[in-house]
């Protein structure tokens, strides 16, 4: 009778001697067809690394613009509702946009602080409950190690 180690070696040797299974004949054709299909796609359907240089430059410029707009919006929200605070150089057609952010900031500042802090505390507590319930469910389903 063989020892467990001898059996393991026998199994290992026997299984490693198994030859490779031949791949289907259609596999190569499928792969090459898929490659051709992907190459025929327009550049905007490919990953960023395959975009033309001009498109990538425009994307970076637009991203910087969005960041600037976001920061400016945050500044508008934090300023008080004064006419001179809105005196920034914008075209007349879009000069109403800063007033939206400023109005939102006014509303937020008008609320009692207790309400704001209370809302933040409730949201934080809900996140903690979510994590706690998820961890408990995970521990229940997972086998003990």
């Amino acid at each position, binding site marked *: *009778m*063989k020892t467990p180690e001898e059996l393991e070696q026998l199994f290992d040797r026997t*299984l*490693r001697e*198994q030859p490779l299974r031949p*791949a289907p004949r*259609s*596999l190569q054709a499928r*792969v090459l067809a898929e490659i051709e299909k992907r190459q025929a796609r327009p550049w905007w359907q490919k990953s960023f690394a395959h975009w033309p240089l001009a498109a990538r430059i425009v994307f970076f410029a637009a991203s910087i613009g969005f960041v600037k707009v976001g920061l400016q919006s945050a500044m508008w929200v934090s300023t008080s509702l004064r006419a001179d605070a809105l005196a920034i150089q914008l075209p007349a057609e879009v000069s109403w946009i800063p007033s939206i952010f400023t109005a939102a900031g006014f509303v937020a500042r008008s609320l009692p602080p207790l309400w704001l802090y209370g809302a933040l505390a409730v949201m934080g507590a809900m996140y903690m409950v979510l994590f706690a319930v998820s961890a408990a469910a995970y521990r229940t389903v997972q*086998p003990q190690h």
Partner: protein
Amino acid sequence: MDSVRPDEFASFMRAYQDMVFTTAARITGSERHAEDISQEVFLKAYESFAQLQSSQAVGGWLRTVATNLSLNHLSRYRRRWRFFSELRRDDGDEEGEAFDPGFTLPDGLPADLDADNRRELIEQALMRLPEHQRVPLVLYHFGELPYEEIAAQLHVSLAKVKTDIFRARAALAKVLARSGITQASDVISS
């Protein structure tokens, strides 16, 4: 990637497609899914072909990608096998579970069974193993992964990996015994 010549990549595929397909087939237990996974592997290889062409470890890279994609496929589409396999153990059914190789094992196989037929029997038996036994067995013997890494990959305990591999060997032992490679009692009673 557009600069890769199709005949060059086709030659690369011919060299490794059997290995990739075999890896995927043995893990998933399905030739149909193995073909889909093999296609994904080679599409990934195509994206990195410039680096792979000159790499000595291309075989290992392909095997690793095939293994990972196969395991991802299993976890995405199968039911949670470890949960159900533990339920079966709790029910006590797994102790008496009989392995069905899916073909009739003749009682009197000739001692000089043709090597090709023997290998075919073993391969069929391997594909017929239950998934929770086949996957760790394949990862251990073909993937050369240690028990700990198999447990980490499959998100199960080390003890479960060892138990499933032992049971897989016991199930295959019948086939190996009938083909004259070993005695089934050597495994069952160890």
